[in-house]
């Protein structure tokens, strides 16, 4: 399965690399576009030393961790969005008769390697924050765990969004608000948001486990909203709890797919 995935991804990458100038330009521009969010953080901290009690490096750590998870998913999973077009035009049929799972085919559909610019940008920010904060292994072991957790949570979100397209047929904007909105949300410490919103993203849609709860552990801080210490370690469990219904929803979607025809 993994081999097939990379084979398909590699095929699309080679196709895109046929225009090397455009390819390099898009990687660079992706890097710059993503760096704008960091520029905003830096400008905010040019005016203040603490945002909701968090320092610049701490915010950058949270930003980098969430950004890395999100951009990895944006590169490797977000092509699922395109399912709505395929459902509408009826081309989804061809995905179902090929000898590879539809999910694998869709996630590599027009695989866009130029998004690595964003991954690189997030990784640099995360690396800088870790170095600047001087985080050692005794708490730093959580960082790879939280990036992996974030990848699973975002991938599950995208799968849920794609599964919804079987019902909604043509509303990628609705689901994009959730996927890209959750990226925006996780860029800052959740302490800046209203209490009810934070409760929602902790207990309903587990976005708080992408970087906030494990991040608090890495930083050795207490939650301003007063959740117990044990919550810091629940990330992987929360990711699984979201991934299971996502997988089920996707299977249900495929089962209920009706082709179009004239």
């Amino acid at each position, binding site marked *: 399965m993994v081999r097939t995935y990379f084979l398909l991804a590699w095929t699309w990458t080679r196709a895109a690399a046929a225009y090397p100038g*455009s390819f390099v330009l898009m990687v660079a521009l992706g890097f710059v576009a993503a760096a704008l969010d960091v*520029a905003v953080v830096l*400008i*905010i901290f040019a005016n*203040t*030393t603490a*945002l909701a009690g968090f320092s610049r490096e701490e915010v950058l750590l949270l930003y980098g961790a969430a950004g890395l998870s999100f951009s990895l998913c944006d590169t490797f999973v977000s092509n699922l969005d395109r399912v709505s077009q395929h459902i509408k035009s009826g081309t989804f049929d061809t995905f179902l008769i090929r000898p590879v799972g539809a999910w694998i085919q869709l996630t590599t559909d027009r695989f866009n390697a130029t998004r690595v610019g964003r991954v690189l940008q997030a990784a640099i920010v995360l690396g800088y924050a870790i170095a600047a904060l001087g985080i050692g292994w005794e708490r730093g072991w959580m960082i790879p765990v939280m990036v992996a957790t974030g990848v699973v949570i975002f991938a599950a979100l995208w799968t849920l969004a794609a599964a919804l397209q079987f019902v909604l047929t043509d509303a990628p904007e609705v689901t994009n608000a959730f996927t890209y909105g959750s990226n*925006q*949300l996780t860029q800052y410490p959740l*302490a800046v948001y209203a209490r009810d919103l934070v409760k929602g993203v902790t207990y309903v849609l587990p976005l708080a486990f992408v970087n906030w709860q494990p991040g608090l552990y890495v930083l050795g801080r207490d939650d301003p909203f007063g959740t117990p210490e044990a919550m810091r370690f629940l990330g992987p469990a929360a990711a699984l709890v979201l991934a299971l219904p996502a997988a089920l929803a996707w299977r249900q979607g495929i089962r209920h797919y009706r082709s179009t025809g004239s």
Partner: protein
Amino acid sequence: MLRAYVLIALWQARPGLAGYDVADAVTFCFVTQAFIGPMQLFGGGLSLPERIRSGDVALDLVRPASLQLWTLAEDIGRAAYLFAVRGLPPMLLGAAVFGIVVPADPGRWAAFLAGFAIAVVVSFGWRYLIALSVCWLLDDRGVAVLSMVLTTFFSGLLVPLNLFPGWFGDLVTALPWAAMVQMPADLYLGKAPVPQTLAVQVFWAAVLLGAGALGTRAVRHKVVIQGG
């Protein structure tokens, strides 16, 4: 909406920053949000790049009307429509959830509406230039991303321009993008001297439209008609 929370947190840490209070900052956030649709701040909105690529632009060029004015008229109509359907809802939402500042003085409303109208023209002038570049580049994706980066960052859409530190702040307020978002928003909040602000906006509108007119003339000699 998320941006409003970030700005609230910032103004709670530094009350009175840049001459705004918390309510002003939230208002700024929702007013500028309302600009995205009418001014197409994320780029696009013009059908011109597509028409250049498909070769349909040849038809537009033989029409007995200026290509630029023709496109401008189309764009203003679209902006008026989008202001109603995309602009007003986020402002009403902001007013309901956070409570935004609503100017009571009709003079300030008049200044804001004038500033907003000019900002739409400035935004058109910029996007028209970007669209024309397709004649030379034949592909609009690269410049589209570049334009989006420049517009969202230097217009004040992401963070108010008066937060930019030092000389960088002075530089960005002097650039044309400031005339798109920051200036009309300041007019709404009553934080900017009305005649000077409108004058700067008119200046940028004139410069960009002028460049667009020159570009249109160049295109008549340069245009490559695609298609078989």
